[in-house]
């Protein structure tokens, strides 16, 4: 697996579409235990990413991710904006100047993104946030890479782990973000940010390897 800037822009483009298609689902997850705007916010953000990257020449993966991060910071708002924005900015920082990235880079990028999210939001695993999807995904990617599995296998493992993380949020009591106001009442609902995180990762896989093989 080697992704160049042009392909990355295509992936981000596709993410905008997928978020749009899943806007209602994300909003409904957020409505149950938050304020019901996550899908709306994310969709606005990724449309801004698309707009921002329209004329990018694709020469620098780091710059592409930074632009995406800035677009997210400047357009999503709410909690998800600074969190996803920081994630993309941090991911971009570790691949500055690179024309292409491979699965090892992806692991670095995800690691750095997760650090950024934690730094910004002070959430830990089990707080019922996007961290729960990201943490599982990173661990799976890490194990699979370490075991020498193929990039496709590794990324597939990350996607599956992200969805597992998402599922796990269902039984958690929220301790960060708006859902935390509900305390015990947040149990039984999946976290919206974890869902958007898993969805983004799945879209990356689908763009790289096709939806059939997923």
């Amino acid at each position, binding site marked *: 697996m080697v992704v160049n800037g042009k392909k990355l822009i295509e992936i981000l483009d596709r993410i905008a579409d997928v978020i749009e298609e899943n806007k209602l689902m994300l909003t409904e997850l957020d409505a149950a235990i938050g304020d*019901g705007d996550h899908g709306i916010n994310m969709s606005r953000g990724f449309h801004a990413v698309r707009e921002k990257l329209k004329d990018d020449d694709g020469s620098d993966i780091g710059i592409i991710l930074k632009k995406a991060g800035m677009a997210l910071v*400047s357009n999503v*708002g709410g909690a998800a904006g600074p969190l996803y924005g920081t994630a993309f900015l941090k991911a971009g920082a570790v691949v500055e100047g690179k024309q292409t990235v491979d699965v090892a880079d992806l692991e670095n990028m995800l690691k750095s993104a997760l650090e950024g999210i934690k730094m910004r939001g002070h959430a830990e695993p089990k707080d019922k946030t996007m961290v729960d999807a990201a943490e599982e995904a990173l661990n799976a990617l890490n194990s699979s890479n370490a075991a020498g599995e193929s990039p496709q296998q590794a990324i597939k493992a990350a996607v599956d782990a992200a969805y597992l993380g998402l599922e796990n949020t269902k039984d958690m009591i929220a*301790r960060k973000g*708006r859902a935390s106001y509900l305390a015990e*009442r947040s149990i039984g609902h999946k976290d919206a940010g974890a869902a958007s995180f898993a969805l983004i990762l799945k879209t990356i896989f689908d763009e790289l390897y096709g939806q059939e093989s997923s």
Partner: protein
Amino acid sequence: MKKFINNPERVVDEMLEGMVAAHPEYIRKLEGFNVLARKNAPVIGKVALVSGGGSGHEPAHGGYVGKGMLDAAVCGNVFTSPTPDPILEAIKAVNGGAGVLLIVKNYTGDVMNFEMARDIAEMEGINVDYVIVNDDVAVENSTYTAGRRGIAGTVFVHKIAGAKAETGAGIKEIKATALKVISNVRSMGMALSPCIIPAAGKPNFTLLESEMEIGMGIHGEPGTHREKIRTADELAAQLMDKILEDMSLHAGDEVAVMINGLAATPLMELYIINRRVHDILKQNEIKIYKTFVGEFMTSLEMAGCSVSILKLDDELKLLLDAEADTPAFKVI
């Protein structure tokens, strides 16, 4: 969804156009940003106050821009914290050289976005500090959670910190006064009906005709629990119990009271609530210095109310009484 709107995606923009058209003597909009600034900003030498957050809480926060309260309000999308860009723009537009104090309600999104804007502004050499309002006693406070929310008590912070800034005080002093208000104010709310975010088109939750939601925030998010509806007197007592439990009020103390409507609740009902709140305070031998009844921090078209109690000292009384002249809050 029955609303006087044109396009769900443009409600905030159109509302701001309508606000500026209505109140040109008070406010102007920053070109290209959903920020309402005092018409005469920056006021040279005065510390500027900036607040804001998601929209849908009108008159908060744009209605409080003017003499004796805010210098700018940053208006995010409905119930969504604004991004750092307009916050930064607001800071730059109102900085009169004496620094800018941000008044932020305690929501993860608001705190993160205002912090990011502050970081950038400081890098650009502007002296920016901030306070976080967390008056809502419905939510358990704990360092392991997002903590208490900021709700209607925020308006007391705007009023009092605004009056302090008007005296020519420095940013440290104003921050200290704002923090005193924050540590002395407690609020608690409840709702009889949900609200509809225009872009979502349907309510976040439904309530039976016989149910109410206790500990309701101001974003259509569910409260702490659901109960059968009760009389106004019982409800007022329930809200006051929770508030008083959390405050150290003693006989002879003086307070300001705010009975805040979430939007659909008529003033008539707010006054009926106020009646009981006053009785309870009197029973506790608490003196009521001033009472505000109306819609100060709303939640789209939600039916419901919140009660806020602010413990006063001589400084706070003086500042509460100081002249304020804004579209939505006037003290003569």
